């Protein structure tokens, strides 16, 4: 009788205790978007774009593009350096500042959606060059009478090491005018 009771106890113990340890899911914080709201994202993008344009204005005046990588990357950085080099080889130099008269989102979902944060966000802008002059090596202005406002299509992408938005592309927009 004692043997049967012992066997029953053994079965009870081995049968009821699970062989694998219980894994309790640890709460993982969901990935957070870069910006909490569209307004925050738009403000950050506009600030980054303005900083880039300021740096460009300086680079076209000094031919020094060493600081540009803090504001631009990829295609935008390469094209800007090429354009500044061409200014230098043509003996042209800029004075005055570019004004961003309009800045509006095209698709900035990557800034407010965590899963898309590696994708660039795109915007339209209107650049006003009325206050910009470009002179040649002899000091003569080479600015045409027209073409003082341009609609642009701009992309910005999040740079994790720098923890800021950088301009990744900027093209003249040939669609409906933004200006």
């Amino acid at each position: 009788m004692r043997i049967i009771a012992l066997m029953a106890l053994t079965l009870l113990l081995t049968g009821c205790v699970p062989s694998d340890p219980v894994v309790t899911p640890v709460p993982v914080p969901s990935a957070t978007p870069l910006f909490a709201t569209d307004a925050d994202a738009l403000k950050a993008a506009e600030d980054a774009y303005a900083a880039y344009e300021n740096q460009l204005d300086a680079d076209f005046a000094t031919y020094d593009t060493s600081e540009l990588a803090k504001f631009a990357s990829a295609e935008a950085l390469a094209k800007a350096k090429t354009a500044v080099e061409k200014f230098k080889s043509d003996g042209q130099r800029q004075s005055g500042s570019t004004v961003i008269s309009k800045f509006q989102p095209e698709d900035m979902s990557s800034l407010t959606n965590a899963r898309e944060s590696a994708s660039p966000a795109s915007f339209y802008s209107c650049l006003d060059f009325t206050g910009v002059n470009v002179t040649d090596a002899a000091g003569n202005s080479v600015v045409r009478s027209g073409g003082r406002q341009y609609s642009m299509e701009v992309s910005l992408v999040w740079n994790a090491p720098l923890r800021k938005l950088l301009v990744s592309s900027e093209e003249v927009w040939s669609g409906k005018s933004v200006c």
Partner: protein
Amino acid sequence: MTMACGVFICVALVPASLAFADPTDCSIGDTRTGACVNATVDGGTVTLSDSSTKPGTNVPQIPTVNDGVFAAPPKPVGSHDLPPGYRDGYGVTGPLTLSDLASFTPTAGTDHMQPNGWAVIGVSTNFYAEVSTQVQDGTLLGEPASVRFTPKAFHWNYGDGTVVTRSTKGGTWAAQGITDFDPTATSHVYRAKGDYTITLTIDFGAEYRYAGGDWIAVAGTLAVPANPLSTTAGDAKTVLVSKDCLANPSGPGC
């Protein structure tokens, strides 16, 4: 143009003298000098448009002297209708915006065929286009503006259900140094008797240059139809010619 021909493949060799420097996009440097304009393609036309704004002035006019008496200039009629910020008649003007546009259309190409107006079933009929790169000049806001059209692709519809796109405009058998009825990069073989209408559409790429700047690419292409051709396909024994080809060498079939 010369042709380097193997057994089955002919490669068109374009002399270097016909090659142009690749146009660039409008750069951020060009935007600073105003060398870029708005360029749009609508059907077979490229339109360049731009606007120029002259700033207003705020220098008051010196009163005029009239018989020794200082007098203000007369107030213009209707000046009370000017928008806020605009003063009138006293030497203060608002900004003035001038807009301008210039349209450019490429000259259509010409489609040719050999033999002229007839085809022999089962052998090659040679088609070729007469077209070249063309530069058209105009003005925009008083500055010189030019558009350069370059033929890029040739869409032939041979009228028998065959539609092809070629990257070369082709050439005559003689110009290619080959024998009549030899296949070419643009030839076609009709397989059935009948009357056919052949159409050709040429795609042009476009670039513009404004105020002496660099060539800047225009997005898109222009599809421009060439003249249609008619042909009668038959076997060699039944093709008729109109009159004596020696007497009338340009007649049908000659």
